[in-house]
């Protein structure tokens, strides 16, 4: 699959990914090992567990100019810290509401659950997010 290149004049959304250092980070590695392509504007910040996800980080990413944010953790039930991913999920849900309230749009934030072998699933997730953000357009915070 070829990614849309930047020469088409289209808007290439900037995505910040927060991933745990277990399944999610391994899935991103696996996408690499299997040479699965995904948009190059996807950049990753490591967290020890998605249970460490903090609303401040998510908001900081938007403030610094991300058009979208993804949080990626282990599959539900397989968290390496028992239920950290569920904690993270709750915070993502709450932050989505907040994004809706302030008019940025909760759909700019999404959480995904992948196991270490699921490189393709990760790539699909960020491809899907890119599509969604292309439709939404640049983050209003970007040049604000």
């Amino acid at each position, binding site marked *: 699959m070829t990614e849309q290149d930047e020469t088409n004049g289209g808007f290439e959304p900037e995505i910040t990914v927060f991933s745990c250092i277990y399944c999610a980070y391994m899935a991103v*590695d696996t996408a690499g090992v299997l040479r699965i392509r995904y948009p190059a504007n996807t950049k990753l910040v490591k967290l020890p567990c998605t*249970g460490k996800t903090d609303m401040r980080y998510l908001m900081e990413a938007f403030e610094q100019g991300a058009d979208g944010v993804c949080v990626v953790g282990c599959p539900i039930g*397989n968290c390496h810290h028992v239920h950290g991913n569920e904690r993270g999920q709750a915070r993502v849900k709450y932050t989505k509401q907040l994004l809706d309230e302030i008019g940025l749009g909760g759909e700019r934030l999404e959480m995904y659950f992948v196991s270490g072998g699921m490189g*393709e699933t990760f790539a699909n997730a960020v491809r899907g997010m890119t599509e969604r953000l292309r439709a939404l357009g640049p983050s209003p915070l970007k040049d604000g």
Partner: protein
Amino acid sequence: MEHNVERNDPVGAVMVVGGGIAGIQASLDLAESGYKVYLVENKSAIGGHMAQLDKTFPTNDCAMCIVSPKLVDCGRHRNIELLTDSDVVGIQGDAGDFTVQVQTRPRYIDLDRCTGCGDCADVCPVIIPSHFDEGLVVQRAAHKLYPQAVPNAYAIEKRGIAPCRDACPAGQRAQGYIALIREGRYEDALRVIKEDNPFPGICGRICNHRCEDACNRGKLDDPINIHALKRFVTDKVYAQPRVPPEPAERVHDQRVAVIGSGPCGLTAAQDLCRMGYGVTVFEALPVAGGMLRVGVPEYRLPSEIVDREVQDIVDLGVELRLNTRVDDLDDVFREGFDAVLIAVGAHEGRMLPIEGIDLPGVMVNTSFLRDVRLGASPDIADKRVMVLGGGNVAVDVARTAVRLGAGEVSMACLESRETMPAHDWEIEAAEAEGIQIYPSRSFKRIVENEENGIGGLECLNVTFMEFGADGRLTLETDPHSEHIIMCDVVIFSIGQRAGLGFIPESTGIGVTRQATIAVNPNTMAATRPGVFAAGDATTGTAFVIEAVASGHQAAESIHRYLRGEELEQPPKPELPVVDLARAEIGERIQRGEVEVTPRVAMPELPVEDRVANFAEVETGYTDELAQAEAARCLACGICSECLSCWYTCQADAINHDMLERAQAIQVGAVVLAPGYEAYHAEQSSEYGWGRYPNVVTALQFERLLSASGPTHGHVQRPSDGETSKRIAFLQCVGSRDQTHDYCSSFCCMYATKEAIMAIEHESDTQVTIFMMDMRAFGKGYLEYYHRAQERYGIRYVRCRVSKIRQDPQTHNLLVRYVQDGAEGPSIVEEEFDLVVLSVGVEMSDGVRELGRRLSVDLDEHGFCRTHPLRPLQTSRPGIFAVGPFRGPKDIPETVVEASGAAAAVGAVLAPARWTRTEDVVYPPERDVSEEEPRVGVFVCHCGSNIGGYLDVPSVAEHARTLPGVVHAEDNLYTCSQDAIQHITEQTRELGLNRVVVASCTPLTHEPLFQDSIRQAGLNPGMFQMANIRNQCSWVHPDQWDAATEKSKDLVRMAVAKALRLESLRKTEVPVEKAVLVVGGGVAGMTAALTLADQGFPVHLVERKDRLGGNLRNIMHIVDWESGKAQGNGKGKLVWHDSQAFLQQLVERVDSHSHITLRLQSEFLESTGFAGAFTSRLRTANGVDEIRHGATIVATGGVEYRGQEYGYGSDPRIVTQQEFEARLAQADDPSSGSGQGLPDSVVMILCVGPAERYCSRICCTTAIKNVLALKQRNPQAQVTVIYHDIRTYGFMERLYQEARRQGVMFVHYEFDQKPDVRVTDSGLQIAVREPVLGKDMVYHPDMLVLSMPVVPPEEVDELATRLKVPLDLDGFFLEAHVKLRPVDFSSDGVFLAGMAHYPKFLHEAIVQAQAAAARAMTIVSRDVLEVGGVVAEVDVEKCVACLTCVRICPYRVPQIQAEFSGVGDIVGAAYIEPAQCHGCGICVSECPAKAIQLVRYRGEQIEAQIAALLEPEMVEVCE
């Protein structure tokens, strides 16, 4: 249990054989508790079957996610030495001191140099089926076993020398260039040919290609058309403008003269020039090339090809002197040459001394052909030409004559048509061109005509001819057969010899009787020192390829001579020649790897177009034809040594000369964990595996499900890649059948798991599982099975499938089976898209061989024989067995055994703990807290893996501009050993206090780099990585600019974090050596004795007033010994006395000086952490406080006593334990043997809670008691009413024995439970048999109920006091069901025995040993390091709200009253660093933001986010 320390000074090292999960776990436990470990694995990487799995049941964890950290730990552990590609071949010595012989096969890639970049695999042209993917896809001969493989290095699979190469005198790697042609890599193919032969274009045309005669493909259809492919590739490359080779570097002063510029002389000249000598070639003729240029006709070998290939050699720097005849050898030496090679060929044609040879018109072959090639053709137009001779040269002469316009051309020779020495295809071509052949003629004279010219040839018919062993000819002719064949020209072509006039006897060069130069055939040395001779001049005429081989050999000898070495080379070990048996080729055809296709014919000029000119007859392959022909190659040698990998590897890691290595290793004990082999499904031919593409094995299906498998986790059917909507699983394929008297234990569960995963992938998939019993006997398994039915709608059908047929059109499968019904059995056939065979467990031939070599007793299936009361001990002391090698078992049990073996080893080796281990000594740590940040950035090219897809130097350049960065550089491979050293040096010399590496993934490489900065005295916390390979170059390979920019972003982010890094603080805590064991049953006692025997003090606490626990209720245990073992064909039951065993245990515990036993005592509470607990115990005498480093919970279980089925209402209704006691009583002589035992018994299995969870032991216990009853009262009638019979593993044999003894088994469903009534006439049990729909009624003397094992009373309270969790059924919950089966999630607390789950005596013993081993990983140390990435509370912000206390998954935070929080409120949270797991959940939840996680502090993460998105945001903090 092993408790005899046999030697006082054993060797503190252990060999673990097998690198699957069992071997890995045993190695880690052993290494962590003080032993040096050699882990021997016969593949190129560890990981075993578990690495192949997609998910694991019952948690559906990704197998790779959970095993990968263990792989990495094992690979990096300083006291574990991995010996991959290795086999144990012998052992000497005794327990405590063994010497083990280990043989290591070459992997052809240097493990120390390989960086795992994969460039070799990218260029490797050889395709083989992927074993890791179970043959579903192909891989390259250079490969890594799987992406996460440890060691992270590639290996080259090489089987031997391909027969084509072996048959070639010059050793041409034909298989290699054929593979490259298939890939369309023609330049590379030519490079391969030139490795061995400087004349590819020439040999492609005129070689006699013995390679094709040897080709294994000839056994199947036709040999590969190797010479045509060779010619194709030269034509292809030579069509391009010639690029002259780089001149060779002159290394040596010495000069070599080569006399003769034929193929032999030029080959030697080339080799010597490349070696760095000065080389001059003397050639008498005006052209170079020798016979190639002047002996082979143009139509076979165009001059421009010869000229081109000669020029390639000249361009290397060889001096070529044409028209320079050497008349005197001594002249050459006088000119200052240090060595001379005589390679003058055989250019003098021979004649026969017969009448008429002086006539005009009589010629010899060599001068005839030479004159034609040099443009001075004799005029033979329209003449009748007779060629004398039957060899290939004679054919050349005759066909040349045709082309010169001769009127008619004939050949006459001594040999018969069949025995003519010329190749058949040459003779056929000659005949096609109209040449008349007169075979079996001897030549009497050449008849003179009236014009003094030739009139004809007088011949006699040959009646017999033979060359004797000495080369002399015996010839008989018919004296009356004189006849004359008319002709005008006679050309002799009966042989050639060398012209040796320039070496008269005085030169000291010996000559043979055949007029060849005498040489030592091994060295090519002539009789005068410094003079060598090779090629036709030494052998008489031979083929070009022999001249080339001879030239190489001479060059090597001359080199050795000039270097002053022995001329004779020492013999080199060689790989075997691969002889593919027809059967093996057949198997490959069956697997679809090979198709029967005849060779692709070489297009030729039609005869009418070729006789009139010298145009080439064979026109050559097109690309398509060549690639099609190349694709037929069977790749016999696997690796062809094409050297593509060697040319491409920038780490210089490839070494095709590696040899097998043998070493003897001294160890004190051996743990055998060789694992299992899946049953070979093709043996069950009724299921069509191998013939029907859509029948796959469960392991293949596992790979199809795997996201990193061949289909990326899309379940595609092999025949057409379509999704499978209807899938059938066939259970017990290779288990529970005529040849396997055992159950493979885990197939029921993996089939269920695979079915669930298939439905998870495609929700509308319908799955049917055909099975006999559902053996869901493990913890959480039954619930999983219920979920499979209820939530996923998986259909389970109880039957054994008799046959599968394939619909030839759709490749769908028709599964046939017998279904019992009320109307009797009927045959059903159902259609499926895909069938999965749940293949069972077998032992490989290799494992049997291992057992034989180690003199370890195996059973007839190859499983290791062990005793139920000493489960891990093999028949040879000091050698232990774990995992499926002891009998089929799943992962958790295997892991338990692996840990248990570590404890068993300790029984032999404990005195030698820490004697063979090594500690890494780091320089003292530099305090950099007050320094300004000085960041060094190292950006990796990873060969071409990163550097080929983005601008690495510009990333380093960008890093240099970032604040705080004082140094940035790019490296070819940052992880290579010299680069690691370089980082250490740069850190020290430049005074770096933070290091950033931008390369690959921290999951595998971070510890390596952290180590390098520790070597420079920097804290490992001062390191940060940017993963620009997995996240940039590999995923954006066609976006150079975007990948480069993203890499800069990631590096900037890493630097931003690096600026804010802090040292990771670790503190050392002294370890309390004692262990607290709670529970005095068999598990507790075993754990206590295991520890105490190895010198650790144990506090054993038992609530009751005596030891023994549940074992007091087990009177006997039984085993089955097969008939084969006894040699009588009949098996037998072997009974063991469990009470005697218990007695021994109790006595040893009572008397052990290291065990403090507290009966009637209870555990109250515990504080502290792993290594330093303080616990309070309530004893008969009050409360004791003890200090200990670890805790083992072994509180056991009890038999359930409910009121189901009238239990308690009638003395004839008893539990299994009660029945067992009664059987034992009957043995008591005082009660009269056999007295009081019932004559008829009904048993009901799965009573009460057993419907919810399987109590694992009840089926076997019931059968054991049945067998015990039948032994005492053979007439007893027994009916067992069951739901599933779960006699897993070898216990299946007991089930079979019970059936043999006539015990009736009746199935029931939980919704139609048996009805039990106590009537006046006795017991009445009615049950509905669900398949037949019939009600069965029994009136037994006794009803025995299989009551499950349940947790003891008050277990909830104990769990609370221990601060460890329980599962829903009240059993203790381990940290991870699969890989941490004896650990609790709280460090330092372990569990064993029935407190964990119902289990057999032998399983409890092993688990107790495992728990002891795990505890020993803590208490065997003097100090523990704690801290690192942990959460820290800022008490001044803490409001003691308890959020962290509630939220922590490990229950670590506590409110400490002595701390003061916000506003001096009393109490604040405290997080013990020794216990914190560093997840950071509490940090994010803390409402007061009073907690920070080291290395993930808020400002660190926010700085990363800012730097990533806003380049200008990077600034030095403070």
